[in-house]
C-alpha cells in the first residue's frame, strides 16, 4: 500500500492551486463570485476548462484526460481549500459520471465534450421531495410514447438547476426501475425556479410536465449506475471536505495566535489549543480514509467494495466535518459568525457536502445492517 502522490499528481496539485488559489486568493473574491448568479465565476470555469480539469475523468476520445479518482480527489481537495463555488463536483463528477457510465457514443461525445470544453453546465436532477439519498426515483415518472419519452413530476433541490444547459434526470420507469434521461431545460413542459443555497451555491426546483426526454443510453433500470455514480461523487466530496477542513483548522490556528484577550494571545489558553489539536486528529484520520477511498475507486474495485469505501468515507467525514466546522466557529468567537469572515463559509460548505449524498447517520444505518456479515474490516480488497 502506497499513499504517496507521484510527480505528475504533485504537478497537477500545484497547477490547480496556482489557478484556483490565485483566483480566490482573497476571500473577498469568493464573496463577489457567489453574490451574483449563477453563484460562481464563469471566467474561472473557463480557466478550469482550459487546464483540462473539466474533462479530467473522461476518456480522451470525449475530450477528457482519462484521469483516475486520485486526480479527481486532488482537484476536489484544492477547490475545497478556497471554498471555490464552481460546480466541479456536481457537473463533472456527478452528471459527467452518469453520462460516461450510461450514455450512448453520440451522447458521450456531445455532452462530455460540452462539459470538458466548459461550454455546457450539466445538472444531475435526482433528489425529489421526500427522498433521502436513495439511488431510485419515484416522484418523477417516465412515460413511453413510442418514439419519444416524456417526464412528469418535480425534482428539488437540483444543484445548479437554473443555470444548467442540460439536465440529466432520474425517473421511475413504467415497467419498474429507475431510468436516466437527458432533458433540454428550454423545452416545453420544463419550468425552473432557482434560488440560493446557504453555502453560496445555487439550486432549483425543476417541475416537469410532460417534458420531452431522451433516454441516457437505453431506457432501462439504471439504479446500479446511479448508485455507483453517487459513490464516486461521495468520494470526491470527501476529498473536497479534506481541503475545507485543513484550511479551516489552519485559519483557526492563526486566529488563536493573533487574537488577544485579557492581554494575551488566545493560544495561551490550553482549553482552546487542545480543542484545535483534536480537530487536527480528526483531519488526519479523515484524510487517510478519503485518499484510501479514492484508491479503491481508482483501482476498478467491485461495486460492493466501492460502496463500502464511499460509505466509510462519508461516515468518517460527516463526523469530522461537523466537529471541525462547529469548533472552528466557536474558537473564533463572534467574528466566526460573520459573513464577511471566511470561516463560516467553510462550515456552511461542509454542512452542504454532508447532506448532498447522505449524511453520517444515513451511511451508519446502511453499514450497520451488514455488520454481522464479516469478522474484520480489511482496507485491502
Amino acid at each position, binding site marked *: *500500500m*502506497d*499513499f*504517496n*502522490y*507521484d510527480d505528475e*499528481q504533485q504537478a497537477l496539485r500545484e497547477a490547480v492551486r496556482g489557478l484556483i488559489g490565485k483566483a480566490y486568493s482573497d476571500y473577498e473574491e469568493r464573496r463577489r463570485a457567489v453574490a451574483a448568479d449563477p453563484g460562481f465565476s464563469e471566467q474561472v470555469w473557463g480557466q478550469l476548462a482550459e487546464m483540462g480539469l473539466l474533462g479530467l475523468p473522461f476518456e480522451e476520445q470525449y475530450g477528457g484526460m482519462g484521469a483516475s479518482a*486520485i486526480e479527481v480527489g486532488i482537484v476536489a481537495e484544492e477547490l475545497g481549500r478556497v471554498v471555490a463555488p464552481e460546480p466541479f463536483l456536481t457537473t463533472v463528477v456527478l452528471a459527467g459520471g452518469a453520462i460516461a457510465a450510461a450514455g450512448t457514443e453520440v451522447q458521450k461525445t456531445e455532452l462530455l465534450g460540452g462539459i470538458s470544453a466548459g461550454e455546457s453546465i450539466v445538472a444531475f436532477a435526482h433528489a425529489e421531495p421526500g427522498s433521502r439519498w436513495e439511488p431510485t426515483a419515484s416522484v418523477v415518472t417516465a412515460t413511453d410514447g413510442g418514439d419519444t419519452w416524456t417526464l412528469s413530476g418535480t425534482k428539488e433541490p437540483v444543484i445548479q438547476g437554473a443555470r444548467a444547459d442540460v439536465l440529466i434526470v432520474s425517473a421511475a420507469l413504467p415497467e419498474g426501475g429507475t431510468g436516466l434521461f437527458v432533458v433540454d431545460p428550454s423545452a416545453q413542459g420544463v419550468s425552473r425556479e432557482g434560488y440560493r443555497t446557504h453555502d453560496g451555491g445555487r439550486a432549483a426546483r425543476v417541475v416537469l410536465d410532460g417534458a420531452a426526454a431522451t433516454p441516457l443510453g437505453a431506457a432501462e433500470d439504471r439504479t446500479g449506475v446511479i448508485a455507483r455514480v453517487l459513490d464516486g461523487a461521495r468520494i470526491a466530496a470527501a476529498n473536497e471536505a479534506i481541503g475545507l477542513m485543513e484550511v479551516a*483548522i489552519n485559519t483557526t*490556528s492563526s486566529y*488563536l*495566535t493573533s487574537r488577544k484577550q485579557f492581554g494575551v494571545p488566545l*493560544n495561551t489558553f*490550553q482549553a482552546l*489549543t*487542545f480543542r*484545535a*489539536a*483534536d480537530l*487536527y*486528529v480528526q483531519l*488526519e*484520520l*479523515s*484524510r*487517510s*480514509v478519503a*485518499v*484510501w477511498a*479514492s*484508491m*479503491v475507486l*481508482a*483501482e476498478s*474495485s467491485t461495486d460492493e467494495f466501492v460502496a463500502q469505501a464511499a460509505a*466509510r468515507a462519508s*461516515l*468518517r467525514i460527516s463526523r469530522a466535518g461537523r466537529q471541525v466546522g462547529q469548533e472552528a466557529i466557536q474558537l473564533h468567537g463572534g467574528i466566526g459568525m460573520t459573513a464577511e469572515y471566511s470561516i463560516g463559509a467553510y462550515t456552511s460548505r461542509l454542512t452542504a457536502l454532508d447532506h448532498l449524498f447522505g449524511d453520517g447517520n444515513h451511511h*451508519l*444505518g446502511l*453499514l*450497520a*445492517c451488514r*455488520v*454481522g456479515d464479516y*469478522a*474484520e*474490516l480489511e*482496507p*485491502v*480488497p
Partner: protein
Amino acid sequence: MQLTLSAEDAEFRDQLREFFTTKIPQEIRDVVRDNGELTREQLVQSMRILNENGLAVPSWPTEWGGKDWTLMQKHIWHEELQRAYVPEPLAFNASMIGPVLAQFATQEMKERFLPATANMDIWWSQGFSEPDAGSDLASLKTRAVRDGDHYVVNGQKTWTTLGQFGDWIFTLVRTNPEVKKQAGISMLLIDMKSPGLEVRPIELIDGGKEVNEVWFTDVRVPVENLVGEENRAWDYAKFLLGNERVGIARVGTTKARLAQAKEFAASIKVGDGTLLDDPQFSTRFVELETDLLALELTALRVAANSADGKPDPASSVLKLKGSELQQAVTELTVDLAGPASLASGADDDSTVPLWARRSTPAYLNTRKTTIYGGSNEVQRQIISRTILGL
C-alpha cells in the same frame, strides 16, 4: 498511490502469519486472547522463540539482531504479531533500553547487555516516573552521588510495570541538582538484586498488581553502569519516549478484540435475533470499525512517509486515537456482557462465560492507555505546539 500490498509485502505477511500461528505455543496465545495473565516463563519463552528466528528486535541495528526492514514491513510485523495474540516482545527490552544502548552506550556495554536483552536473559524494568514526576518527568528527584568507583542512589521510582519480574532496571537519576532540571539527569543501569533496592507492588483498580514502586536506599552502582555521558540522559530519554510512541496505535490488537466482541454479541440471544442485530450495538460496531480503519490507514500512511526513520509528529495522532479505541472496545465488551460483567470474581464453574467475567477488569485496566506513553494531554500539547504552531 497503490491500494494493495506489494507482492513482496504480501509474501512477507503470509510468512509471518504462518510463523506466529504455528511456532508460538497455542496455550500462550490463548492466554493473551482471553485477556489472561501470562507467567514470567511464558513471556520469556515466547520472546526467545522470536529471537531465535530473528523476529524479536527488528528495529535494532542489524549488527545487534535487528532487521533492515522497511517501515511497512515493521508495520506488518506488528500487526500480524498482535492479530495472532503473540505476546509482544517485552517493551522495556525490545523498544526501550535496547535501542538506547545501541545508540548511546560504549561498545563494551553493548556487548555486555544487548544480546542478553534480545534473548530475555535479562528482564528489564523501567525506572523513570516518580511520585512527583509524571508527565513532568524532568523534575525527577532520585539522586545519584558519586563515591569513588560507585554512584550512591537514593529515592523512589513508581509505576514500574512488571517490576516484580525484573532482573535489571534502567533509571533516570539526578546527578547535578544545580543546573536546569533537564541538564542534570543521567541514566544508570542497576541490578535489582543490589542491597538497598526494594520492589513494592501497587494494587490497581482491576485487582491486578502489574505495577510497582521501586525504592532505593544507599544503593551502590558501579560507575561503568552509566549509560553514555553523565548529565546527558534527557536526550536519551527523549529518544526512548519517541520510540515508545511508534507501534502504540495497537491496530492489530484492537482489530482482533473488536472481532471477538462481534462474536460475543452474536452469541447473546435477544428476541428473534442477537445483540448484534440491536441497532444500539450494530451502529457502535460500525463507528468503531470505521475509526479503526481510519487509524490503520493513518498508521500505514505515516509509516510510508517517515522514510528517515524519525517518528513523524503525526505519531501523536496514532497514540491518541489508538489508545481511545482500545478503551472503547473494552467498554463495548463490558456493555455486551451486561449484568454478567459483575461476575468478575467467579471461577470456571460459573455460568458466566470467561470473556464476560474478564470484561470489567480489562475495561478498568485499559484506562491506563490514555495515561502512559505520554498521556493524551501531552500528545495534544505536541500536536498543538509542533504541528499547529500554537
